[in-house]
């Protein structure tokens, strides 16, 4: 089952129906219940195992070529396509429907960060829903991570605009941080861990169809 081209899941316990993009039950006994999003990383296998050498992974013997490989590079928007039946609300096409974005929802606000902007601005100090956040983007692996810029003591950090060897410096203390784990590796804050913010890796159409009031970083809409 699809809702606006996105997966609808059901739980075995109540058979309520859930939008996976919203993480919310749209029908059934649990209608309206919101699940908790957890931080994750969409990256390549090499990068992931470098970050987490002790990771376990689904065996490569259990899958083959991605059946959607051609879809990713096609112009097609979802299974149903756009329109009143399944395709989500109409919208202006100021961003290509199949452009990749990182979507962040915080404090009732939704904001999308297009890859096209992230490749030019791989460090972004921003605030979403009142929460100071930093986006770090690795242009080699097209991997983005979002962190809360606040420390436990109330300090809010900002980060320098450039990344070197997947490290970024904060402007306050000059400590160097791993852009994917949010851990300070050296400097006065060495060992400090930023809180990672859950984010959604999506095609633009897949994000805006469910977050119709979303703003877009760097784009006036």
């Amino acid at each position, binding site marked *: 089952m699809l809702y606006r081209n996105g997966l609808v899941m*059901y739980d075995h*316990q109540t058979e309520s129906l859930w939008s*996976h993009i919203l993480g919310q039950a749209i029908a059934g006994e649990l209608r309206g219940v919101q699940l908790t999003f*957890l931080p994750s990383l*969409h990256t390549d*296998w090499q990068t992931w195992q470098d970050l987490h050498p002790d990771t376990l992974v689904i065996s490569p*013997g259990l899958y083959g070529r*991605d059946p959607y490989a051609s879809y990713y590079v096609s112009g097609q928007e979802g299974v149903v396509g756009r329109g009143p039946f399944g395709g989500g609300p109409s919208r202006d096409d100021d961003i290509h429907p199949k452009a990749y974005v990182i979507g962040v929802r915080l404090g009732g606000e939704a904001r999308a960060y297009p890859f096209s902007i992230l490749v030019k601005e791989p460090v972004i100090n921003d605030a979403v829903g009142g929460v100071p956040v930093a986006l770090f983007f690795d242009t080699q692996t097209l991997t983005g991570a979002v962190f809360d810029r606040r420390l436990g003591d109330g300090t809010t950090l900002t980060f320098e605009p450039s990344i070197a060897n997947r490290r970024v410096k904060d402007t306050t203390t000059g400590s160097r941080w791993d852009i994917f784990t949010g851990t300070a590796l050296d400097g006065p804050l060495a060992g400090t861990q930023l809180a990672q913010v859950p984010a959604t890796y999506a095609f633009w159409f897949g994000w805006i169809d469910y977050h119709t009031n979303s703003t877009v970083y760097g784009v006036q809409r």
Partner: protein
Amino acid sequence: MKILLTTILAGLVLTAVACTPNRLQKAIQTPQPDAPSVAAPTPSGRNLQPQLGNANIDLDEVATLLPPDAIPAIMPEDVPAMLVTAAEADAAGMEPSTRVLGVSINGESRAYPIPFMSGHEIVNDAVGGRLIAATW
């Protein structure tokens, strides 16, 4: 509500699953030699349509193209036997460029390869003491 404790969703929500309905049908009904994970559909016979009776969304925006469970979600009890270490995955030929969804919770890490997720869409798992669903 307590039921939900068993179904906490991970923040792995990605894009709308897509390809043409025909292609999707073909993909799951005709396993390719190079895609052994794309199983033949085994609809469970569940009928989820009545649940839509109290939906809080416009039903015009809901489409049912396949019966429930035609794309088989992975259940928690099935995951352990599917997992290998990084070294084992590399030895088995996993490409460094394969995209993965990675989660790391309380020191325990998991990678869900995207080509695998395309064939199953949901993995129910337990990582670092949390019960999660990785969805794609």
